[in-house]
């Protein structure tokens, strides 16, 4: 019985990956500038960014989903599709978390190198781009892959807006077949593969990108 539903559960994977991939990418685009602003910005900028990070980290994801789907976006006059809205909210939230990962990494690069870059004639921004970021991003990789694993779990909460990702489908199958264990077992296996598989890939990238001689320091 459950075997008939296998393909239905598996078709949740693209939805889950869409949520996770979209959310992570958006979070990266938001998080990196925030981190740069928090390390190098003026006091006013830092205060504003701190508020953003505080808000999106302390508010529960479910609350954020409802708030944006039925509150924020309609207030601006448009209604987003459930999937897009979920990706946006996930992105805003992980952006807040990612910004702290990047911020720690940027601060660990140390200011000496940036000063040397400026002494050569680079503007601060150029220095950040050519000297600080290549190192900070490498350092961020392990923490960032952790963020992936977190969003993967969070993606299930988007069922609240009707997105049919893996866990939602699994629940439906459990109900339709009256089999509580097997479908969740399959879903669990899927999540393990998705978590472990992608984290492994990120690790390989991290190893390849490592700077020779800096083993142990990173």
């Amino acid at each position: 019985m459950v075997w008939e539903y296998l393909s239905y559960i598996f078709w949740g994977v693209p939805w889950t990956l869409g949520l996770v991939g979209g959310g992570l990418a958006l979070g990266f685009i938001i998080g990196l500038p925030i981190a740069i602003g928090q390390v190098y910005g003026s006091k006013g900028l830092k205060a504003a960014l701190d508020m953003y990070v505080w808000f999106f980290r302390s508010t529960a994801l479910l609350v954020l989903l409802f708030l944006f789907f039925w509150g924020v976006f309609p207030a601006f006059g448009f209604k987003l599709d459930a999937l897009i809205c979920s990706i946006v909210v996930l992105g805003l939230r992980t952006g807040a978390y990612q910004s702290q990962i990047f911020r720690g990494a940027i601060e660990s690069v140390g200011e000496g190198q940036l000063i040397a870059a400026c002494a050569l004639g680079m503007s601060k921004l150029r220095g950040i781009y050519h000297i600080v970021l290549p190192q900070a991003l490498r350092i961020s990789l392990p923490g960032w892959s952790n963020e992936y694993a977190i969003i993967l779990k969070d993606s299930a909460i988007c069922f609240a807006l009707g997105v049919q990702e893996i866990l939602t489908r699994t629940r439906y199958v459990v109900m339709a077949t009256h089999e509580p264990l097997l479908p969740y077992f399959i879903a669990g296996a899927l999540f393990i593969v998705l978590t472990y598989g992608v984290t492994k890939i990120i690790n390989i990238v991290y190893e390849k990108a490592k700077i020779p001689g800096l083993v142990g320091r990173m």
Partner: protein
Amino acid sequence: MIKTQYAIAGIVIALIVGAAASWVMRPLISPPPPPPKAKFAEIPPPGTKIIHGMDAAYPPFTEIDPTGKAVGFDVDVVDWIAKKYGWTVEHKPWEWAAIVTALVKGDLDFIASGMTHTAERAGEVWFTIPYYTYIHHILVSIGETRTKEEILNSGQYISCQLGATSDKWAEKLLKEGYKFKKLALDSYELAFEAVLDGRAVGVLSDSAFTGPYFKERPDVAAKFKELCTVGGVESYAYATRPGDYGLRNALNQGLEELMASPYWDELREKWGV
């Protein structure tokens, strides 16, 4: 002495926070914005797209088949009514906890998903005529000899489904002073199994679940007998937004016509309700 920069930053932040707070509190101090204009104040003409909201986790009324298509008793009824009026219907699964909000906000056009007509819900949505009735009951092992009073005061476990109406009824009974222990489990199946295991002496279920379940699993049915009913008769109805008179009238007429026809019995037979 506080440095000037900090003071200015503090004032600016306070202003922004204050503005944001008053924006958020607006509904509390001013009248709420008017509800969205009724989409279906008139009967929807043929060809209209109507979104049918359902919780796909509630067989046999609404569920998913292996291809992911929405099926179930309610789905068939809705399809029949849609055909009658020439509507194009989209069966949209939605999370139960948010389904009423989705209807009120316009993401769904009506809810047909084994939804009980309750006073609380009737404050937000307006229901069609009832199309199915059920009652809560307590079932015990077929060999059980004790009476209702004895079971309810036995101090032993009575199982029910966590968060469902049976859970609420169990709580009501406990408040009335009966002495048993509530065993709330994740699903009705598990609640029934608890009795078969011997962990519980009885299961508090509702006939909307028990009926189809027993028809599907006669082996399980053979092991139980009904001890007593609990509470009054409840009914399922479809939910619509208050302003959608046209849609609701159409649904009502469709339901009445269908219920009077032999197809209705066929559907009930098919889904075991």
